[in-house]
């Protein structure tokens, strides 16, 4: 038995300290209030203990000022906790724009990671210290959840949808990652490692790691193989909208609504093309559900994202 066990997790991300600060505030408030209650109860229980069977104390019905006091003060403290927690949550939910984007596919019972340079990992994830990292995640089967205690972040990973989370590691090391949403037999076994490397070591790792195609290149290849360019070309006319510069911009749909072309929109357009038809086009795109794996879909999306930068660069 490991007797040198920790009582508190390390802090290894930019938000960890803030989460712990709020936590300690909550602990302090809890200690104060529970001590207050325990001491009062203990004191009253002893001081007013029954000394004779004939004791019948006078009733005290209530006190409005006291009621207001112990309603409003806790309410005030609760609001402080709420605001603090909510503002921290906004930070946790909003990845910075220049984050390193890594795609994650979870399945029973493993984690598959793909780096933008083409490196792929299973269950272990190498990240650089001091740089924000954004994980875009989906599941191939049931709901999982990616949890790194030392970063104090966690997000469920859903089938059929993308969720994302971000962190910026501040301390090099080898840390646990866990699956935090019960997912079947080997739920406990979906253990992973997050390996935080200082930038120099990270660069070395990047070049040493088995590199396949970059996701964008693999995506371009799939794009060709599946025949997407037959309709999605600059000169394709009414067949399909051009995809250059599409990602990250608003799209006008038939019927007047506008959506934002993010990963979820691209995924839906490929798997369920008739859900949202772009204004000015007809319902002709077939579905590719079952023909593309989750990893393949991430690659195609990476390719489409790259069209934004390439075409703008070409146009100059």
């Amino acid at each position, binding site marked *: 038995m490991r007797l040198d066990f920790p009582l508190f997790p390390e802090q290894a991300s930019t938000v960890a300290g803030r989460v712990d600060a709020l936590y300690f505030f909550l602990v302090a408030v809890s200690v104060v209030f529970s001590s207050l209650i325990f001491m009062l109860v203990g004191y*009253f229980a002893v001081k007013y203990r029954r000394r004779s069977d004939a004791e019948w104390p006078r009733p005290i019905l209530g006190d409005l000022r006291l009621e207001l006091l112990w309603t409003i003060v806790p309410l005030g403290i609760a609001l402080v906790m709420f605001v603090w927690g909510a503002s921290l949550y906004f930070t946790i939910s909003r990845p910075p724009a220049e984050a390193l984007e890594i795609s994650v596919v979870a399945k029973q019972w493993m984690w598959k990671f793909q780096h933008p340079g083409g490196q792929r990992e299973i269950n272990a994830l190498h990240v650089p210290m001091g740089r924000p990292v954004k994980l875009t995640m989906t599941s191939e089967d049931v709901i999982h959840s990616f949890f790194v205690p030392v970063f104090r972040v966690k997000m469920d990973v*859903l089938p059929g949808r993308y969720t994302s989370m971000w962190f910026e590691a501040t301390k090099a090391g080898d840390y646990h990652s866990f699956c935090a949403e019960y997912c079947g037999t080997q739920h406990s076994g979906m253990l992973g490692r997050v390996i935080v490397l200082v930038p120099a070591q990270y660069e070395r790792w990047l070049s040493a790691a088995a590199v396949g195609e970059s996701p964008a290149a693999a995506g371009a290849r799939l794009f060709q193989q599946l025949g997407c360019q037959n309709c999605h070309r600059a000169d394709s006319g009414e067949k399909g909208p051009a995809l250059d510069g599409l990602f990250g911009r608003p799209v006008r749909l038939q019927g007047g609504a506008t959506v934002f072309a993010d990963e979820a929109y691209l995924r839906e357009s490929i798997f369920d093309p008739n859900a949202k038809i772009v204004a000015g086009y007809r319902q002709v795109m077939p579905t590719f559900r079952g023909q593309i794996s989750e990893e393949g879909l991430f690659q195609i999306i990476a390719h489409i994202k790259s069209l934004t930068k390439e075409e703008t660069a070409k146009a100059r």
Partner: protein
Amino acid sequence: MRTPASEPREHYLNVSYGVRSWLFTTDHKRIALLYLLAITFFFFVGGAFAVLIRLELMTPAGDLVQSETYNKLFTMHGLIMVFFFLIPSIPAVLGNFLVPMMIGARDLAFPRLNLASWYIFIVGGLFTMFAVVAGGVDTGWTFYTPYSSTYSNTHVVATALGVFITGFSSILTGLNFIVTIHKMRAPGLTWFRLPLFIWAHYATSLIMVLGTPVLAITIALVAIERVLRIGIFDPALGGDPILFQHLFWFYSHPAVYIMILPAMGVMSELVACFSRKRVFGYGFIAFSSLAIAVLGFLVWGHHMFVSGQSVYAAIVFSILSFLVAIPSAVKVFNWTATLYKGSISYQTPMLYAFGFIGLFTVGGLTGLFLASLGVDVHVTDTYFVVAHFHYIMVGGVVMGYLGGIHFWWPKISGRMYPEGWGRLAALVIFIGFNLTFFPQFLLGYLGMPRRYHFYPPEFQVLNVMSSAGASILGVGYLIPMVYLIWSLRYGAVADSNPWEAKGLEWQTPSPPPTQNFEQTPVVQDEAYAYWPGEVEVD
């Protein structure tokens, strides 16, 4: 001056004998005892699973049972404890027994419906026990899709049916209580003269009738989805697993208030009687019960902060979750104030009340950690949550239940339990409980997720502490089982009001006659009229 022992020749227990007189009874008191037997059985089953879980978790490796089995153990522990022990416990046992008596009625509004509720409970329990013995179910008590609807290979449908059926028992009990409290109060018993136990059960019943049907339909849809292989909640078939979570938690959050409100009702009775004082802030406690019931329906999304729901939805659910904590805090302060200048005695029920105040306070405060979005992201789905809800459900509800059982035992059985053993058990339970569950807060913050069969070795010491505590807790629960049964034969005969308590239930003999009162009482006093003077019993 104590009132003379009054054990009439005929009362509800001896008015008729034989299995049929029990299985076809419509007497709310007998039905309460039928429920007592049933939920005690389920407590043992759920407790057995807990023992196995804590044994397994003593070592980091999964070496006692296989993972498939472990996943069934925690699922069935949760299902049985929540649906077949905690939710019925106080309302179906103490509520059924006491609601008519406390309001001066002869029975509930619909006695045959009450018996039907028990049978429905038993049928639901049989479906679930079938699933248990036929190989178990491993979806977690929360049945998240698509695991439960598509991937699990265990007896999901049988379990879903069991929970579905049992839900109707809850709904009908709630319906019965609402109508009874509205329409059958004795003359002079206005709403604000009602014991707070009644207010608590009224609020609980509102939640039962409004929330349970949503769970019923949700779980039915999961079963249908599984059988017909259609996609209501499975994304591979076009469905939305988050919709399941919303529908599930829409009931299952208010469900925790179904569990705690009746315990709070018991608390008011115990604190008043054993301080010999009117409850401080009666109106505030009454309205707090209603506020908890209403607000409780608005906070379900706090179970889903990391599920992928929108940030703005999370904000709304967070602030509402903080609001719902306030009425509970108000109650704790009011009970504490009741002790001030009271005349306090330390009999067993009061020890359970003290334990409740301590443990519920800790449990409630740790709920604030979970309502705080920034911290919840870290601790949700970890042992922190497990510790939090066990503090409320075991530290709160079970302590309230045991306190109530001891308090009303003389009324129910006509006998006193042995006081020394009672106090000892209360103490053992309190110590065992804290040792079991406090380390789990630390484990959770360290990052140990819930529902883990095996874990990294640095979590072992805290797990061993927790398991050691569980063994003490288990012993603590066994002690009352033994002496309560013993007391039925050998306990001191109780008179009608051994605690010199106020309340209509104490104005009848122990045990009461079938019709509760020889004559319908007329109420002229406020509740908890413990003013100076002697207690009069007619």
